[in-house]
């Protein structure tokens, strides 16, 4: 039950994205333009109608260009407009949508274009090396960590505390790659088995190659408008009903990794705004962030859609399948569609938007859906962003 709204209602009326691929032949600006143009076309707007532009992009080092917000500005339609860039690591994609939301909700802008782009492939020898500069230079960097280490540590802790096996976690990878087969934008859709995952190359035990999302390039964009004018452009606006985000500290060796408390805080903030009291009953479809397969389970628990340690059980029962009670990652998620960091997060929001609008095509889930949640996560296991939308 919502009372006393202190902000303007916000609707999403258009979305567009490029295919996600290992190496796109376009520049980051061209990718951003393609996604933005598609979003404007779907919304039935022209660039001159847009008041403000929000750009989301993760570390500059991936594309290999500094000041990426400024660099992307003309491809994202931000020239001579109030444009800003948001960045919260992997959580940037959903934060881009949230930022688009508060530009409109505050009453400052009527129509906002939110664009997220990432090109992971340029870094040599491997984009992994770019992560060297995210660690504490005194206490962590001397040990030469790479990013997969900390994911593996969190995954192992999650498995240890909740007594979860590798087989149960591999089911996420199987489900998401299967879902991605129906997604025209996907990089890695297909039928794989639990055995394929368990036999793939061991990167950092317990993480194996098929537990991880790929290196990808891509862009995504959405149009958010003031609720009062949304119906001028569409009969089926999708309402942004709740947003939440939280940042924990960078001291990941100093806290319990088995449960993401920062995500629970973010989810509670978004649910309270959307008037959701019993998440598992009231949410119809969810896109949790899944750069690694265990992360989807971890996040489903943080979103309070499963009790602590019980997400694998529900997954095995088919609760989160495309024809299940709460379809999870019907798009195929990052594991299936690809992981151009910021664009992947906004892709999650777009997936929910298309599901609620009923235009998801072959990705459309079986049951009727009215409330959807998209979530992203990032930095040193510390950031989470949540958005709740309704039709």
């Amino acid at each position, binding site marked *: 039950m919502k009372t006393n709204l202190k902000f303007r209602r916000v609707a999403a009326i258009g979305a567009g994205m490029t295919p996600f*691929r*290992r*190496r796109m*032949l376009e520049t980051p600006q061209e990718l951003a333009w393609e996604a933005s143009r598609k979003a404007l076309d779907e919304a039935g707007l022209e660039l001159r109608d847009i008041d403000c532009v929000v750009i989301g992009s993760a570390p500059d080092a991936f594309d290999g260009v500094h000041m990426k917000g400024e660099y992307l500005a003309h491809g994202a339609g931000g020239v001579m407009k109030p444009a800003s860039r948001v960045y919260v690591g992997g959580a940037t994609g959903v934060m881009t949508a949230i930022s688009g939301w508060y530009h409109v909700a505050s009453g400052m802008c009527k129509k906002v274009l939110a664009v997220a782009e990432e090109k992971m492939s340029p870094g*040599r*020898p*491997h984009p*992994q*090396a770019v*992560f*060297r500069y995210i660690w*504490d*230079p*005194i*206490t*962590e960097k*001397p*040990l*030469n*960590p*790479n990013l*997969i*280490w900390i994911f*593996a*540590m*969190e995954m*192992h*802790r999650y*498995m*240890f505390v909740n007594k979860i096996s590798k087989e149960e976690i591999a089911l996420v990878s199987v489900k998401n790659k299967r879902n991605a087969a129906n997604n025209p934008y*996907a990089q890695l*859709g297909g039928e794989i088995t639990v055995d394929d995952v368990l036999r793939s*190359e*061991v*990167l*950092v*035990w*317990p*993480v194996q190659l098929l537990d991880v999302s790929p290196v990808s390039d891509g862009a995504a964009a959405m149009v958010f408008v003031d609720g009062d004018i949304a119906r001028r452009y569409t009969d089926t606006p999708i309402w942004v009903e709740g947003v939440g985000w939280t940042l924990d*500290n960078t*001291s*990941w*060796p*100093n*806290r*319990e*990794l088995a449960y993401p*408390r920062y995500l629970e805080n973010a989810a509670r903030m978004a649910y309270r705004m959307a008037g959701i009291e019993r998440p598992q009953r009231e949410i119809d479809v969810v896109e949790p962030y899944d750069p690694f397969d265990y992360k989807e389970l971890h996040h489903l628990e943080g979103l309070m859609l499963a009790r602590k340690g019980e997400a694998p059980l529900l997954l095995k029962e088919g609760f989160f399948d495309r024809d299940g009670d709460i379809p999870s990652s019907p798009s195929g998620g990052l594991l299936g569609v690809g992981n151009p960091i910021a664009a992947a997060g906004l892709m999650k929001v777009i997936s929910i938007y298309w599901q609620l609008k009923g235009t998801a095509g072959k990705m459309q889930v079986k049951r009727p859906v009215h409330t959807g949640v998209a979530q992203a996560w990032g930095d040193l296991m510390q950031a989470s962003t949540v958005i709740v939308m309704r039709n």
Partner: protein
Amino acid sequence: MVHPLKEEELKEHFTVTYRPQAKYSYTAGQALSTFLRGLREGKILGRKCPRCGRVYVPPRLYCEDCFYPTSQWVEVKDEGIVMTAVASFISWTRDRLEEPEIVGTIRLFPSSPRDYVYPGLFHRICCSYDDVKSMRIMGKTVRARWKPVEKREGSIEDIECFEVV
């Protein structure tokens, strides 16, 4: 799913061979400098918040919850519990390693299993790949194996690794 590039074409590329001299001399800071001097003496030092009692290892000058200065140096034990451990077969540049590197996080004593935040370190753990794979190492009590005094230089590397007691 058609992609104009083939796998081998991904490996052929023009590279800009310029190597920027992006070297940094980081500041260890007020709190970490004392911590590093402590390591040289074989001690793990932390800072305690006088308001909430939280002990920070690695130390901080301020408490992130209370937002007041931590005021007291405390020495924690060089002994703790392995919270998580992993075996890495890839280097930081994602090259393949033949021998896995084993690292993890350690919750240092004094602390309790009920703590959500605790004094702790990220470090190497001296154990076998099998210990990690079977999860035998998880929850084990470990102690720091220090470098010989003359080789210590005031760095996190003054601890060689943590090994099972």
